[in-house]
C-alpha cells in the first residue's frame, strides 16, 4: 500500500479522533438550536481565500450577519482544501471543533457517521430553491446535515471550430457516439478527446454515472461499481487510447491552471470543470471572443454531470447551536452564495440564481446551472475519505499499462470493501 502524507494523517486523524472524542474537552453534547442566537462562534472555511475573499466574507457577508444577529461574534479560521481534512481531524482530536464548518461534497457521510455534524432542520432544505440532486450530498441516512454553497461541475467542453470542420452538428448522445466522434476528430497530433486532464478519479466517476452505475449502494455499506458497468467505464478509456483518439501521456494539469489541450487546439473535446471559463478569460480570451468553446453533459445510459463543491454545516459539539445554525443558513442564502460564486468563478447551487448577471456572464457556469438536474456526486459512504485516496492510484495502471480494467476495478472493490468493513 502506498503510504502518503495524506493517508497517514487521515488514518491518524480518524483513529486518534475516534479515541479521543470520547474523553476530550469536546465531548459535551452540543446545545439546542431553539434558543436565541448568541455567543462567540468559529467558522472553518476552505473558501473565501485571499484578500478579496476575506473582504467578501468579513466585510460583507459577516457584516450583514452581525446586523441580523448582534449578539453573535464570528471568528474565521481560513484554510485550504488540501489541508482541510487535517484541520478538521486535529481539531476534532483536540476537542475544539469549529462551530460551523465548510467541507467538500462527499465529506458529509464520513463526518456525520462520526457524529461530528449536527442534523439540520428539514425546513432549511426548503428555504432556498435547490435541485434535489444538489441536496443529495448534504444528506446522510436521509437526514440533512449541510447546505450547498458554491459548486464545481465536471462536463465535456469542445471546440466548435473542430466540430464544424468535421461536419458534426450536435454533441454525442451516447458513449458509443462519443467514441466514434473522438476517432473522427483525431487528426495528426490532435486528440479527438482528452479525458485525462482532470483528476482521473472524478473523470472515471463521471463515466461511471453516465454508464448508469453508482459508487455505493443507497446506505453506503456496499460497493456498487464492481459490476460490468464499472469495468466498462474504465475500459472506455483504454478503448479511446487504442483508437488513438486519446493519449494519457499528453494530459495537462488543467486543474492546476496549466494551459489545456483544448485551448491549444491539441484536443477537440476535453473533460473539464466549470472553472475552465475563468482560465479561458485569463489565458485565451480570443477563444471566448470568437465563440469557439461549447459544452455538453456526458451521456451514456443517462446524462451525468459530476458536481463537487462546498457545503456548510454545523458542528454537533457547538455550545451555541442557535448562532451556528443561523450562520449556516446565512452563508447558504442566495445573495451570499452568488457573491461567493462570483468571487471564485464557481457555480451557485441555487436554481433561482440562473438568471443573475454573473451566471449569464460565464457560459460554463450558466451551462452548469441549467443542467443541475443531471448533477451527480461522489462519495456516499462513511468510508469515503479513505476510499477516495485509493481510486486514482488503483485505476491508473489500467489506463497507462497493460493491466486489465476488470482487474483494476476488482482491486479497487476489495480496497473499498475493506475500508467499509473497518467502519
Amino acid at each position: 500500500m502506498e503510504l502518503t502524507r495524506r493517508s497517514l494523517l487521515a488514518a491518524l486523524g480518524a483513529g486518534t479522533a475516534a479515541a479521543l472524542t470520547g474523553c476530550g474537552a469536546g465531548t459535551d453534547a452540543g446545545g439546542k438550536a431553539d434558543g436565541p442566537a448568541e455567543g462567540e462562534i468559529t467558522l472553518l472555511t476552505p473558501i473565501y481565500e485571499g484578500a478579496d475573499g476575506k473582504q467578501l466574507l468579513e466585510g460583507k457577508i459577516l457584516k450583514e450577519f452581525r446586523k441580523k444577529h448582534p449578539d453573535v461574534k464570528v471568528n474565521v479560521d481560513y484554510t485550504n482544501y488540501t489541508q482541510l481534512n487535517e484541520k478538521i481531524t486535529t481539531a476534532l482530536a483536540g476537542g475544539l471543533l469549529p462551530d460551523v464548518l465548510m467541507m467538500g461534497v462527499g465529506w458529509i457521510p464520513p463526518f456525520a457517521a462520526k457524529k461530528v455534524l449536527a442534523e439540520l432542520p428539514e425546513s432549511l432544505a426548503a428555504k432556498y430553491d435547490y435541485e434535489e440532486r444538489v441536496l443529495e450530498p448534504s444528506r446522510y441516512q436521509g437526514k440533512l446535515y449541510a447546505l450547498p454553497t458554491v459548486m464545481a461541475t465536471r462536463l465535456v467542453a469542445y471546440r466548435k471550430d473542430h466540430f464544424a470542420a468535421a461536419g458534426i452538428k450536435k454533441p454525442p448522445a451516447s458513449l458509443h457516439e462519443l467514441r466514434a466522434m473522438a476517432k473522427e476528430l483525431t487528426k495528426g497530433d490532435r486528440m479527438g478527446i482528452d479525458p485525462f486532464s482532470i483528476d482521473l478519479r472524478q473523470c472515471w466517476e463521471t463515466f461511471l454515472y453516465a454508464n448508469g452505475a453508482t459508487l455505493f449502494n443507497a446506505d453506503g455499506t456496499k460497493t456498487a461499481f464492481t459490476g460490468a458497468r464499472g469495468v466498462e467505464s474504465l475500459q472506455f478509456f483504454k478503448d479511446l487510447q487504442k483508437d488513438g483518439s486519446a493519449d494519457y501521456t499528453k494530459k495537462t494539469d488543467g486543474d492546476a491552471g496549466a494551459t489545456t489541450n483544448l485551448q491549444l487546439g491539441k484536443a477537440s473535446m476535453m473533460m473539464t470543470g466549470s472553472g475552465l471559463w475563468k482560465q479561458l478569460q485569463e489565458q485565451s480570451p480570443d477563444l471566448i471572443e470568437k465563440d469557439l468553446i461549447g459544452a455538453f453533459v456526458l451521456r451514456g445510459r443517462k446524462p451525468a454531470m459530476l458536481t463537487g463543491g462546498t457545503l456548510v454545516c454545523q458542528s454537533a459539539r457547538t455550545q451555541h447551536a442557535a448562532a451556528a445554525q443561523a450562520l449556516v443558513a446565512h452563508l447558504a442564502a442566495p445573495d451570499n452564495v452568488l457573491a461567493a460564486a462570483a468571487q471564485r468563478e464557481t457555480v451557485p447551487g441555487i436554481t433561482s440564481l440562473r438568471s443573475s448577471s454573473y451566471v449569464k456572464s460565464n457560459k460554463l457556469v450558466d451551462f452548469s446551472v441549467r443542467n443541475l438536474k443531471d448533477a451527480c456526486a461522489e462519495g456516499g459512504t462513511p468510508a469515503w475519505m479513505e476510499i477516495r485516496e485509493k481510486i486514482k492510484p488503483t485505476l491508473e495502471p489500467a489506463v497507462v499499462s497493460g493491466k486489465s480494467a476488470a482487474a483494476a476495478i476488482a482491486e479497487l472493490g476489495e480496497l473499498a470493501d475493506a475500508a467499509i468493513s473497518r467502519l
Partner: protein
Amino acid sequence: MATTDTRRPPAPGRIALYVTLSLVALLMVVPFLWMIVTSLKTPAEIASADTSLLPTHWAFGNYADALRAAPFATYARNSFVIAASHTVLNVVFASMAGYALARIRFRGSEFLFYCFVAALMIPTYTKVLPEFLIVRFMPLAGGNDLFGQGGSGWLDTWWALIVPGAITPFAVFLFRQFYLDLPVELEEAARLDGLGEFRIYARIMTPQVKPALTTVALLTFESSWNNFLWPLLVTRTDSLRVIQVGLSVFKTENGTQWHFLMAGTTLATLPMVLLFLVGQRYFVQGFAHTGLK
C-alpha cells in the same frame, strides 16, 4: 633568459568535470530562472503555445498585485520571527545536547544518543497529531487547568508556533559528530586552566565547530521558513499566519494563478538565497564534515 609558460592545458578529466558540473548547475538553476521569468509574464503569455523564453511584455505589476492578495508583510514578519527563534533555539540547545553526548561521560549517554538517532527516523507527519494534542492540552495555558482541560492551551499563540519543533534531533546528531572530532587536549588544557564545563563548551569547544553552527542555522531557518502545515493547524487568526500560508491563496481547487504564485514565491525565496550566499562556505564544510564521519 627566456621564461617558460608553466601553465599546462587542463587535463581531459578536468574538462569533463567542469562540463558535468556546469550542466548540473544549469539544471539546478533553471527552475529558479523559470520561476522568475514566469512571475513577469501575463496569464495569456504563460498559456500561449508558442511562448518565448523571456516575456514579451514585462508584467512587473504581478508583484504588486500578488502582494495585495494577502497581508504578506504580516506573514513575512511572522515567518521571520518563527524562523529566527527556531534557529537561535536549535543552535543553542542542540549544540549543548550534542556537546554533552560527545564529551561528557554519564550513564545512559549511549542509549540517549541512540534515542536521538531513532528520532531522526520518525516521519514528520506522524508527529503532527501528538504534537498538536500536547499543544492543545498544555497545562495552565490558554485557559487550561492543571490537567490541560477547559481552554485551548497554546493553540493560536506564538508558543505553539515556536516551541514544538524548535530543537531537532538532526541538529543534536550533527553537533555531536563535530564535538567528537575535537582533540581531547583542548578540553584538558581548559580544565587545567580552571574552566568549568559550561565555559569549556561555550568558550573553547563551540568556536571550533563554526561550520556546524552555520549548517544547523541555515537548515533550521530554511525548514522553518518553508513550514506550512504546522502553522496552519495551530493558528486561527490571520495575524499569526506565515508566508507559505499566504502563498497558498494563489492555488485553489479551481486553478492556479501562476503569475502571482511565481511572483510571491520569488519574493519568499529571496531571504533563503541571501542567507545561503552569506553562509555557503561554512554550509558546505558542515556537510562535508558530517559526510566524513
